[in-house]
């Protein structure tokens, strides 16, 4: 499960980097750095400029990966806390 989560994370990171590059190109260094530090900002900005940048496919893939990532995170966390012993 953890390996799957890592693979999803890696694919998500690739999508993230591709959108951050667009953010740097369109809005400059400050917005780009903010995009690196705050993935939510990059994600929202990507969806808001999906038509002008022609990145609908990329954003759809990234969205699916995020949703899958959230589900996997919850499952991994449940498996970790389920196996833990509480003193």
């Amino acid at each position, binding site marked *: 499960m953890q390996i799957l989560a890592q693979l999803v*994370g*890696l694919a*998500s990171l690739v999508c993230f980097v591709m959108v951050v590059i667009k953010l740097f190109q369109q809005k400059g260094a400050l917005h780009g750095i903010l995009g*690196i530090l705050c993935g*939510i900002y990059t994600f929202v900005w990507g969806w808001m400029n999906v038509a002008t940048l022609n990145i609908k496919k990329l954003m759809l893939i990234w969205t699916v990966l995020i949703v899958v990532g959230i589900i996997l995170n919850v499952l991994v966390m449940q498996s970790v806390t389920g196996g833990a012993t509480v003193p």
Partner: protein
Amino acid sequence: MSAVSAVEERRGLLGSLIESPKLCAWVLGAGVAHVGLSAAGLGGWPCPFFQATGWPCPGCGLGRACVSLCRGEWLAALQMHAFAPLLMLTLGLLGVGLLLRGRSRSALRGGVRWIEDRTHFVPVVLIALLFYWALRFTLDARGFRSLVR
């Protein structure tokens, strides 16, 4: 960088965010959803950097630190991420910018832009955040990893 981007860069980051209420609203909404999910113990927005590498990014832990701040647990919040109060202030400012209309919003935007132009505090804070991240790795990388995991 295009001429328009160069002008936006000069205007400052916060000023240009206040100028885009739609972007502001979506970022705030997603941020609140993230903090809500974190508070519910569901993890929230998965950081792609952390998920892929197992190492926290400069922003990792901010959501949980904000949850601690909302609960009044200042020490826990600062231990998780020292920039959480600053993030809450910024989100509050953007929220106020969304609520204001007409002249009031223009005045707020003008004020923020004036401060940004003179103090350059946004780039300073962003660079400080990167230094803070590097410092945490240098002082106690393992502790940092286990804290934000």
